[in-house]
């Protein structure tokens, strides 16, 4: 109950982590099934239909429901602490963001048991995703599930923007913000601009499918290529929504374990902004083979290649952060230094893809599959692992086992390289992506087998990580404030896990790496910026949960509004939009309650502000 009503950013972080972990696991199982099917030529482990559902759900799940929420978990856990805030700007809305994400994700995954998962690829290109060629409810689950989950992401992004703009501790100017906070800030800005595009796209596709509109239907005057533009105007920035937070994590972990401040802080900030900006200008590089014409292909080729410049700045800044440092290879840092070469691999193949004539050969082959997994798994997932090992003590008060962490690293890393390195060659040798099987004797057999073995090894790495979590959870809560001893930012000044109110007194920030600065000045604590006083807290409430349940019900109602259930009662309920209406009534009713009932929250008085952060 506590978890359903909480509005505390630290608990919401845990919720995001658990839910993201669950979906990541589902996506991982889907990946393994895909790899088993492709282990040998003309395999018949799954049918062609199930295979298409697997690749679609794997891609969709991983991107929208797996890694994004885990990033949101880390952001929620860390950003308010890093800027010296007591919570995010809108705690109620934060909870709402989580619950809509969760119910959107559940709705999407219900498709497996409710008559067919989406099968048109995570990109859902029309007309294949139209009702004419995708006759099950699969794509409806996709459009409506993602719509609901996307709402949560948008809400979360806006919340972080407001939090970072308004709630920084005194003295923390923008150019003193920790890098992870910076990347969260930029990421949220990208979300703010990119998600409306997919929202509109999903609405249009829903209209086409459920209400027989003609946005993408040529016969009705629509244009299927329009979907590709809308999708990628969202889809390309989405890649940066994923990778920028990983950049942020790496920029925190490497300095801590090298005992050095981040090299070229301001160029890092500007590189991040530049990447975000360019990220919006290059969507059509996913569409070179769609036939945009020579001028467009040339322009998008060049603008894409330009992203290599700010990315290069980042890579070298990280390397020179370590230069002259005292590098400790903790598990967290292993993932961070492992990130650099793997991400560079993904980056250079990205530049290769940017060359349009060459992309005519690369596009939609395993070369592309290799490329984006190097970026997403080799970049983002390694970044997430790094961040989780790094901040786990802050989140839970317990340090993850270092030796199991190292085992996770090595199995995952080796498995990863085995899985995806060979895929570059498969693509060049003529293997398209999204194929359920392939003929023998095309030189594909051995490399596919290697790739499958690698995937299993990655699975082992993930299992070791889970074991690590279970073992660690049994240990006592005894992590010190600053378990890595070289913490540089504000989160390390308060107990692990932090008390409900985070900071008893808002700290005064006197430079970049505020805590490090105090430590070097011989202080053990931050100088407070305010006297001890009563702390205002928001009240717990089940309303965000109820609102999301309402949206979930409404989604199901809309989706099945035209079905014949062979049962007059059910038909009556759905075909007259009664279920849809019930769902909306629940949601809007909860909204009404929220606006009519004035809740002023509560206060923690100074005498109740004990130092150790007991998690209620």
């Amino acid at each position: 109950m506590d978890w359903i009503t909480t509005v505390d950013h630290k608990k919401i972080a845990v919720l995001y982590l658990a839910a993201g972990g669950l979906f990541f696991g589902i996506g991982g199982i889907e990946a393994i099934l895909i790899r088993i099917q492709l282990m040998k030529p003309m395999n018949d482990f799954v049918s062609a239909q199930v295979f298409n559902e697997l690749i679609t759900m794997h891609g969709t799940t991983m991107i929208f429901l797996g890694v994004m929420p885990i990033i949101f978990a880390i952001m929620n856990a860390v950003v308010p602490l890093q800027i010296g805030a007591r919570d995010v700007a809108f705690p109620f809305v934060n909870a709402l963001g989580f619950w809509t994400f969760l119910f959107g994700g559940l709705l999407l995954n219900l498709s497996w048991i409710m008559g067919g998962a989406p099968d048109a690829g995570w990109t859902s290109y029309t007309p294949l995703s139209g009702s004419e060629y995708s006759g099950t409810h699969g794509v409806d689950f996709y459009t409506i599930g993602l719509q609901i989950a996307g709402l949560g992401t948008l809400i979360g992004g806006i919340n972080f923007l407001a939090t970072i703009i308004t709630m920084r501790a005194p003295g923390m100017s923008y150019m003193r913000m920790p890098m992870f906070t910076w990347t969260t800030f930029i990421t949220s800005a990208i979300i703010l601009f990119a998600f409306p595009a997919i929202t509109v796209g999903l609405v249009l596709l829903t209209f086409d499918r459920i209400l027989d509109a003609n946005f993408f239907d040529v016969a009705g005057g629509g244009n299927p290529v329009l979907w590709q533009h809308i999708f990628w105007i969202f889809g390309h920035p989405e890649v940066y929504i994923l990778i920028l937070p990983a950049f942020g994590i790496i920029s925190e972990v490497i300095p801590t374990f090298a005992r050095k401040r981040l090299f070229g802080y301001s160029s890092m900030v500007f590189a991040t902004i530049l990447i975000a900006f360019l990220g919006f200008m290059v969507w059509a590089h996913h569409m070179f083979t769609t036939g945009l014409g020579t001028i467009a292909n040339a322009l998008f080729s060049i603008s894409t290649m330009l992203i290599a410049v700010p990315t290069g700045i980042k890579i070298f800044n990280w390397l020179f952060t370590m230069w002259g440092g005292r590098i400790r290879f903790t598990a967290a840092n292993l993932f961070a230094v492992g990130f650099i070469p793997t991400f560079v691999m993904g980056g250079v193949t990205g530049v290769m893809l940017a060359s349009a004539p060459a992309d005519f050969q690369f596009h939609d082959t395993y070369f592309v599959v290799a490329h984006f997994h190097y970026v997403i798994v080799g970049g983002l997932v390694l970044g997430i692992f790094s961040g989780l090992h790094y901040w786990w003590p802050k989140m839970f008060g317990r340090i993850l086992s270092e030796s199991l962490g190292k085992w996770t690293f090595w199995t995952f890393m080796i498995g990863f390289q085995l899985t995806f390195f060979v895929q570059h060659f498969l693509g060049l040798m003529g293997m398209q992506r999204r194929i359920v099987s392939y003929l023998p004797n095309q030189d594909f057999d051995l490399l596919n087998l290697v790739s499958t073995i690698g995937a299993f090894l990655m699975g082992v790495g993930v299992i070791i990580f889970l074991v690590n979590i279970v073992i660690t959870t049994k240990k006592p809560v005894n992590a010190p404030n600053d378990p890595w001893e070289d913490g540089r930012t504000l989160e390390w000044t308060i107990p692990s896990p932090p008390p409900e109110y985070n900071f008893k007194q808002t700290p005064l920030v006197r430079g970049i790496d505020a805590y490090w600065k105090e430590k070097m000045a011989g202080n053990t604590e931050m100088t407070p910026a305010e006297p001890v006083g009563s702390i205002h807290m928001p009240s717990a409430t089940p309303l965000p949960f109820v609102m999301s349940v309402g949206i979930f019900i409404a989604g199901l109602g809309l989706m099945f509004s035209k079905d014949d259930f062979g049962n007059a009662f059910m038909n009556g309920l759905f075909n007259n939009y009664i279920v849809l209406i019930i769902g909306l009534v629940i949601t809007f009713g909860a909204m009404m309650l929220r606006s009519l009932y004035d809740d002023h929250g509560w206060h923690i008085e100074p005498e109740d502000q004990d130092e150790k952060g007991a998690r209620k």
Partner: protein
Amino acid sequence: MMKQWQVAKRILPLLAVFSLLLSACGREDLSVMKPQGPVAQGQYDLMKLSIAIMIVVLIIVFAIAAYVLIRFRRRSGQNDIPEQVEGSFKLEVIWTAIPLLLVIVLAVPTVKEIFAQGADLSNDPNAVQVKVTSHQYWWEFTYPQYDVTTAQDLIIPTDKKIAFELKTADVIHSFWVPSLAGKMDTNPDGTLNKFSFSAPNEGVYRGKCAELCGRSHAYMEFKVKAVSPEAFDRWVAEMKAPAVLPEDTQLAEKFKTNCLSCHAVGDQGGPVAPNLTGIGGKESVAGILLNQREGQEEGKPVLDNMKEWLHDPQSVKPGNTMPSPKDLGLTDEEIDGIAEYLANYKLDYE
């Protein structure tokens, strides 16, 4: 220009090594790394240039990373605090400038190649015009200059450029012959794509559908067969000859009513399904069941493949739209009879 050449010169030896390494991969009739025509060659050259540049980048980054990680790891008892370096304007400018330079080196030939390959040959009388129409899950090739339509095997002469106009009859597919040229999507009306390639050497090249198009996307293969100009002319003539029908008149009747409602042979039948003229001599049945061919170890006799297809088309290509001959009321013997007739229906042009 001078500067570019300098860079290129340094990259050349690397290029040589990598061409060798890369070209060890894959089949000649399929691999991107063994281009068999000028278009694929141009694309491959660009790929080699970019790979070489990227390898240089990788080597530099990996070397610095390895050096840093070994040299600056924390040894036991090392408890001092290193100098907190702010950054270095000079260094940062260097690693902004170098990637920029490398990007320019790649961007210039990229743009050149984009415009070189973008030429529109659709009104060129010297090119063979081919209209490609993709269907779930087969390929239709129409030659408007010769008034000929075929499916699955694209026959082209070696001496000419082939100018394609691509369109789809249903969802978006992508037309790809890796060893001859990169892929191009087949869009519905309104945004039709044009491109061209040529195949100077006789041979059979494997083509694939490269855009997810439904259940049998993986099986939507086709072949490009490049033949001498004389053979091509004979092929056109043979294609236009009157249809050959089964000798057994009863079987011929069954074939006409059940099959020719959709398919065509010679001058008879409908355009809904793949044209069957000379199907016994094609490279494959249904694009995916390879037929035995001289100098190739894979494949089954065409008769076996034909029977496999006709007895259960769904198991070969799930989700395809051909009705099962059994459901049309044909007996096993009739099906085998038709299979035999089709397997023996060959064109003599090579």
